[in-house]
């Protein structure tokens, strides 16, 4: 893989990773009296591994590949495998978190294994580790294919992919050591945040440069979604993480916001992380892999435009629905509620556009588990957005807020939509990337599908039941006008659902393990095949100029 880099590229890769080593060492020394020091050693180790991998290949012969007639897929391949590793690890931890809620003793009395520390490892691990890697990898694939252009250089994509994973590792290891800003989904401390800004800007520039090189007159919808994802996440991340470090030698920092402004900024961020990380990017994925797999044209271009701008515009306003009935002024809540409801139609328009695209291909959905993953994902997308808009209505939120209903909604979206569309896309993409005839085992894909679906359904139903039971118990009054149930009563009522949820999660993560195995076996054991035309040519050309380069 390193041999595909030119000499100059190898040198700059070594320079960059060398700088990483220096930064890591600086953090380790300056922060030696703080957990930041330990984080420095992690940065150093990570950079050193990259440095030596490149150094090892420094004197290999220059690549002979003709860059004008091929796409650059190496980082995509690594990204896909990384996404699957994160999936298995972070969902596995999700099961542990779920089990701790049912059996609190499973903490084993260590600090690092307490609920408050492993929960963010789960959330960041699945959202950023699994989702983020999948988004970066598929975006590399899609931006090149739909632009009919190769990425402009070979160092930036690696920098973005590996830099992002370094961020994820710093984040997850930090949580276990107790490093957190206490802002949900934005827990990492200031140094990790600064690093992510650098990586993210590089990502944005890479995307724009690739689009600028495109050989297609128009930009395909999937790219709008990916660009919205990258651009808005950059803005959200920077604003929400504005903070002043207590000391440059330590991990602790203080947010630039306080009180209700802090809460509003956090949930403006949090909600749009849902919108632009967990929705927009994955819609990009859907818009490429679903029509490709179904071999059907997108149902309606006009609907695409309507839903894209609808989603992009309305989501930005909706964050305050996370703060109903709080110190937030009433008018902000009203706005959040109304915009959340108006958001429903563009959201359903996306889901509908995807499902209507399948018209004429439903027999494929029946036979092909990969396409079925995508179909069911679109259904869950529709379901969770309907549920979300419903929960955003204040009186409904009065029941759902703080309960497991929210958790059920989250996972209908996260497992049913985000994870299923990702798995479907990975199954569609893996044979293409590695030029394989097919996945190693179609049966395993089928198993994964049913395990994932069963896991999601069990999880979501358990949480609906638990959440609504809990919400109703909290608001039941006695004849004396006092609360009927103590908190412990509700915990006892929720216990069976918590057990069911852990079980559902176990099924889900079993499916993910099967998927991981299947992808590895495909790479290693399925015979090669030169697939259909898959490299940049002028739109007029029908024949490949050169055979596909490996």
């Amino acid at each position: 893989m390193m041999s595909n880099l030119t000499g100059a590229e190898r040198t700059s890769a070594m320079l960059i990773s060398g700088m990483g080593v220096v930064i890591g060492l600086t953090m380790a020394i300056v922060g030696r009296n703080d957990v930041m020091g330990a984080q420095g050693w992690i940065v150093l180790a990570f950079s050193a591994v990259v440095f030596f991998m490149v150094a090892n290949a420094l004197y290999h012969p220059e690549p002979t590949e003709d860059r004008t007639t091929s796409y650059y897929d190496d980082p995509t391949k690594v990204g896909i495998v990384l996404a699957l590793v994160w999936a298995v690890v972070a969902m596995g931890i999700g099961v542990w978190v779920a089990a701790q809620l049912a059996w609190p003793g499973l903490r084993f009395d260590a600090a690092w294994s307490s609920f408050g520390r492993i929960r963010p490892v789960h959330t960041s691990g699945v959202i950023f580790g699994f989702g983020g890697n999948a988004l970066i990898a598929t975006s590399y694939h899609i931006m090149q294919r739909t632009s009919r252009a190769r990425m402009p250089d070979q160092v930036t994509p690696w920098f973005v992919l590996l830099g992002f994973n370094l961020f994820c590792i710093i984040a997850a290891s930090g949580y276990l050591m107790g490093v957190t800003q206490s802002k949900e989904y934005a827990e990492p401390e200031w140094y990790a945040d600064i690093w992510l800004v650098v990586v993210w800007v590089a990502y944005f520039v890479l995307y724009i440069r690739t689009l600028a090189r495109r050989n297609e007159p128009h930009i395909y919808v999937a790219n709008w979604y990916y660009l919205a994802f990258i651009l808005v996440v950059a803005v959200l991340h920077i604003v929400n993480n504005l903070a002043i470090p207590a000391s440059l030698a330590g991990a602790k920092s203080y947010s630039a916001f306080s009180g209700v402004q802090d809460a509003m900024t956090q949930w403006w961020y949090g909600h749009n992380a849902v919108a632009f990380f967990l929705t927009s990017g994955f819609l990009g994925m859907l818009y490429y892999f679903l029509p490709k797999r179904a071999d059907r044209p997108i149902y309606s271009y006009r609907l695409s435009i309507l839903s894209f701008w609808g989603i992009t515009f309305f989501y930005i306003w909706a964050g305050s629905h996370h703060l109903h009935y709080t110190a937030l002024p009433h008018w902000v809540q009203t706005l959040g509620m109304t915009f959340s409801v108006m958001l429903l139609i563009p959201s359903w328009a996306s889901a509908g556009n995807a499902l209507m695209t399948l018209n004429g291909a439903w027999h494929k959905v029946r036979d092909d588990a990969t396409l079925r993953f995508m179909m069911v994902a679109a259904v869950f997308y529709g379901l969770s957005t309907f549920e979300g808009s419903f929960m955003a209505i204040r009186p409904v939120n009065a029941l759902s807020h703080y309960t497991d209903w929210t958790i059920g909604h989250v996972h209908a979206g996260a497992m049913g939509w985000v994870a299923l569309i990702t798995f479907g896309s990975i199954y569609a993409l893996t044979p293409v990337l590695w030029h394989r005839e097919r996945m190693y085992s179609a049966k395993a894909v089928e198993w994964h599908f049913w395990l994932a679906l069963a896991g999601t359904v069990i999880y979501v139903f358990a949480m609906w039941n638990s959440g609504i039971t809990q919400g109703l118990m909290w608001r039941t009054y006695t004849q004396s006008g006092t609360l009927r149930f103590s908190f412990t009563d509700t915990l006892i009522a929720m216990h069976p659902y918590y057990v069911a949820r852990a079980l559902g999660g176990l099924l889900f993560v079993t499916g993910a393990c099967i998927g991981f195995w299947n992808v590895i076996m495909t790479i290693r054991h399925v015979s090669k095949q030169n697939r259909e035309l898959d490299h940049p040519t002028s739109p007029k050309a029908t024949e490949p100029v050169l055979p596909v380069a490996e």
Partner: protein
Amino acid sequence: MSVKDRDPLTGHQTTGHEWNGITELNTRVPRVVWFFILVTHLWALAVWVLLPAWPLVTTSTKGILGLDQREEVAKKVVAANSDRAVWGERIKSLSADEILGDPELFARISDTGPQLFGDNCAGCHGAQATGGPGFPNLIDGAWLWGGDTDTVMETLRVGINAPHPDTRWAQMPAFGRDGLLPRNDIRMVVDYVQSLSGVKSPADTIAAGAEIFATNCTSCHGNDGTGNPDAGAPDLSDGFWIYGGDDEAMFRTIWGGRQGWMPAWEDRLTETERKIITVYLQHVRQDTVK
């Protein structure tokens, strides 16, 4: 492909673009989508007119319903409090026996007591108020400070070793750690204390222990070890233990001292609520004794 094709299946035209094999139809937006866009927007408009919604420079539009969540809550709280005050005042002023004898008030106690206890006390004293290591059983009839209504109410108000200015102080000194007694003496006094509740030990150790007890312990626990409610010093002869009556636990108690911490509830629960819990506990106690 820039010529607009027709999709044979739907008969709709494509946009004429193609990306790596993907094409798009130029289908018009279905009417139902426009319809629901209209519905949701009209609904939003109505809500904006009715409720506080849009920011003005220093305030916001108020909405014609004139609702404000804070005023709403304040009103509801006042209403709920006045509903409860009807019987709450009576609970506050009557004695425990009177309350338990009055069916109407007794219903209030059994409605409310379990939740108040469950949310505030069960975490330490156990779901059934039977305590656990370090936390006293509240229904066994063995008291540190006393079990009558007024004493318990006072314990709840000020707490034990709590930051409240009037708090009750319960300090069992650390005889071993602070070098007041050597290990061996502690072992002997343990045997003596155990003998008070009928545990057998060699007579000579008990005698030696009794002597140590007389010089070190009686000031708080009383000459016969039956405790002193004014110092919160427990009766050591009744066989009820907070920290445990076996050799190991008792050795630790005397070696390292004990300063149990019971929060003060004056600022957390109203007087009526404290009274409800107190009477509720008394009721549970009577139930278990029966």
